């Protein structure tokens, strides 16, 4: 059914809300990629079966929602209106949960979240430390609505910003609002969206385009995926508003091929939006027409770079172009093109509906609003978090993340994806925003945040990211292509104990040349992992080179494993797990490692219950 005007959208929403009983029992099962891979689809089905068996089917709705964010604890299930939050729900727990929560009106304690620090059971999502410190603006609907049901989105106010823009605002007023909100690009550059929109508006061209960059490729990052999967309409609504402001009838969403659920949910959302009249000809009964096409990326990391992405949309090889002209002026087919990333677009409806004053009430001087991060690595609470700009790294890692896993020591946090930098402990109180992270030699990037503990070797980390980038460099320009290969070679040498005097300086020279000389931002930031680890952990490089020692006990060529006789209880677990039978010893007697056979795989170290395996 098409909705022909802003007023009709409002009455449609009122009808929807009327038909929904706010006190109706709902079971929200997370349908994000993390929970799905942990079997949440099956969990939802078993909930349905159990409800049938208990004769509760008519009174209870089971809903698959988008990602709740606390992926590590999945599958996640929330009962509304009670607000009870269950974690790691397997098929086995379903009958007990239904019985305790619905039949008996209590809670099933075993599936509640337990605070790892206080060991306390926590009943509601909003009281869990992971969620408590968050400010969920962009993720406002994630975990709340069914992303495949447009009416769910409309009921919570969706497309209201579009209606407001089309009926109450001129395109110029929309741009002013975005400009005044100082909405900066969430894809990494942090360029003010309003200013980019103006450039596109002022640029000459018979046609103009808007693009949504959904080619999120950073290892360990899933901010945009969760938004596209869990709340696709917020991105689409943002794009329609942007298209109206800029004056274009064509948009593209460029999504990674590796995000099948995002692609599926976006297709469904586009179809539904067309059916409701939010896309296509005469949107909401106005003269404005606009539609969106999905383009699926072929799996190249570099296609997240805007000019490579545009080349890919045009059917060319995904390589950045070497032109000193902005794509806002000459982008797709040399026509003015506005590209923003998923999270930026999802912010647009908020800015328009709530206004710039509201939006700028949160954040730092230079960075307003919130930012979504994927918090991963050696941190207790792994998942998707959204916080106000200006939160400190310490707040994110300790208050929300719950601190370092296994109560080890914090060593560094890598922000901004593979080309970001590693930030040491002394900067934990840095306020996280676009400018502060850049000052530290890292970057906001799209919001990846990898926490590392004291058992992490920083040279090894630099090698890992460099290795990723060697594969992902498009190979067009010399400093990035050849520089990364040589950089990796030097790092491999150093971690193998074959480092030479002068290697650090060579890495620095090489890193500077790549930074200054590369063609695109991938190459220009590719040296960041190496340069930032040298800057903050130079002593670790020196230990590898001069003393042939890996202080963190990670680099296999520089470490030895042995068993402390006094600590060993002879449980035989290490001997059983050793893949090369290098460990010998009788039951309940101290074991020994044959160093000539040992391949330093760490299996014994990980499995020992008394920490008797020593790395030197």
């Amino acid at each position: 059914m098409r909705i022909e005007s802003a007023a009709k959208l409002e009455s449609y929403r009122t009808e929807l809300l009327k038909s929904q009983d706010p006190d109706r029992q709902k079971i929200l099962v997370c349908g994000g990629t993390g929970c799905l891979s942990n079997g949440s689809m099956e969990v939802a089905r078993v909930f349905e079966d159990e409800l049938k068996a208990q004769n509760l089917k008519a009174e209870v709705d089971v809903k698959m929602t988008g990602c709740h964010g606390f992926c590590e604890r999945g599958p996640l299930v929330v009962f509304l209106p009670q607000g009870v939050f269950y974690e790691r729900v397997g098929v086995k727990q379903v009958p007990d949960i239904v019985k305790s929560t619905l039949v008996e009106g209590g809670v099933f304690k075993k599936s509640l979240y337990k605070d790892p620090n206080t060991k306390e059971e926590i009943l509601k999502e909003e009281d869990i430390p992971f969620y408590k410190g968050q400010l969920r603006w962009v993720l406002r609907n994630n975990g709340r609505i069914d992303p495949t049901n447009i009416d769910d989105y409309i009921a919570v106010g969706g497309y209201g910003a579009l209606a407001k823009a089309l009926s109450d605002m001129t395109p110029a007023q929309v741009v002013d609002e975005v400009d005044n909100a100082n909405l900066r690009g969430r894809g990494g550059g942090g360029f003010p969206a309003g200013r980019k929109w103006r450039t596109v508006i002022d640029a000459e061209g018979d046609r103009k385009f808007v693009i949504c960059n959904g080619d999120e490729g950073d290892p360990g990052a899933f901010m945009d995926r969760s938004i596209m999967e869990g709340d696709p309409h917020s991105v689409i609504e943002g794009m329609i508003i942007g298209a109206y402001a800029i004056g274009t009838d064509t948009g593209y969403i460029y999504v990674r091929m590796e995000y099948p659920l995002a692609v599926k949910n976006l297709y469904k959302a586009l179809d539904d939006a067309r059916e409701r009249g939010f896309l296509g000809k005469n949107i909401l009964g106005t003269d404005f027409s606009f539609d969106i096409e999905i383009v699926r990326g072929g799996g190249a990391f570099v296609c997240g770079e805007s000019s490579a992405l545009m080349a890919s949309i045009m059917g060319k090889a995904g390589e950045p172009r070497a032109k000193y002209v902005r794509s806002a002026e000459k982008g797709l087919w040399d026509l003015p093109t506005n590209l923003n990333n998923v999270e930026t677009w999802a912010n647009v409806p908020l800015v328009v509906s709530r206004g710039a004053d509201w939006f700028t009430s949160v954040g730092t001087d230079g960075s307003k609003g919130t930012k979504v991060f994927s918090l991963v690595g050696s941190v207790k609470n792994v998942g998707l978090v959204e916080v106000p700009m200006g939160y400190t790294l310490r707040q994110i890692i300790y208050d929300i993340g719950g601190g370092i896993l296994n109560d080890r020591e914090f060593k560094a946090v890598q922000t901004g994806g593979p080309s970001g930098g590693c930030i040491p402990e002394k900067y934990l109180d840095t306020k996280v925003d676009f400018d502060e992270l850049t000052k530290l030699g890292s970057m906001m990037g799209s919001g990846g945040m990898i926490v590392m503990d004291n058992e992490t070797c920083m040279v090894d980390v630099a090698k890992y990211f460099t290795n990723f980038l060697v594969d992902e460099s498009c190979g067009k320009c010399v400093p990035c292509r050849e520089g990364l290969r040589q950089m990796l070679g030097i790092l491999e040498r150093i971690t193998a104990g074959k480092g030479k005097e002068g290697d650090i300086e060579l890495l620095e020279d090489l890193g500077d040349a790549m930074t200054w000389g590369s063609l695109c931002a991938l190459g220009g930031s590719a040296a960041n992992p190496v340069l930032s680890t040298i800057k903050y952990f130079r002593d670790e490089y020196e230990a590898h080179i001069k003393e042939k020692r890996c202080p963190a006990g990670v680099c296999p060529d520089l470490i030895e494993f042995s068993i402390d006789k006094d600590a060993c209880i002879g449980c035989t677990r290490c001997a059983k797990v050793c893949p090369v039978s290098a460990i010998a010893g009788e039951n309940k007697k101290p074991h020994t490692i044959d160093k000539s056979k040992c391949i330093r795989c760490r299996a014994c170290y990980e499995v020992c219950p008394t920490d008797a395996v020593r790395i030197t």
Partner: protein
Amino acid sequence: MEQTITVTLNGKEVTATEGESILDIARRTHVYIPTLCHNDALEPYAACRMCLVEIEQRGRTRLVTSCNYYPSDGLVITTDTERVVSTRNVILELLMARASGNREVQKLADRLGMSETRFKKVGDDCILCGMCVRACSEVVGVDAIGFQNRGISRMPTTPYMDPSETCIGCGSCVYVCPTGYLTMEDKDGIRTIKNWKVELKLVQCKECGEYFATERLVQFLKEKKGLSEAIADVCEYCR
């Protein structure tokens, strides 16, 4: 009318036309800027990064490639700042490591006074300047070749590395290659370009009887470029 602008190049004021690249301005005024992937017959490619220069705009300096940077009035350009030289030298060292035996790279190293590279030698012949691919596309208009793979596996080749069905054997790629990586041989009435796995029949000049072009090239000139038989069927000496 062409707009005239004034830029400062290494401290000297120079007049230029709008749309003229820094490299063109420099060459016209006898200021040396090294290049490896530039060819006047082709669009700027900016991949070798040898032609980096430093520009100053609104108080900020940055490095840009001179081959595809078109200055506006008042731009301050310096071709030999410390940052330009150190960046360029490292990039050249990288190329010396990739293609140590390459004559163009060696020539440049000699000119810039670089004797050794600090990087591990790899021993590739092709420097990926892209001139072959670009000549085939931009000048000939055949697009028989392109790049395959990415990163260090990147290489110019035919689609799927199969023997090219579209190559007309004109040899432009070979003539333009600065490294000797591409080879072409005419023997017994057959032209062989090993890199594209093609063996094409040569035709004889209608006048002198010498083999002078491939059958496909003559056909291409007649059909696609509209050349008359009087021109297309005879060699350049007999035309």
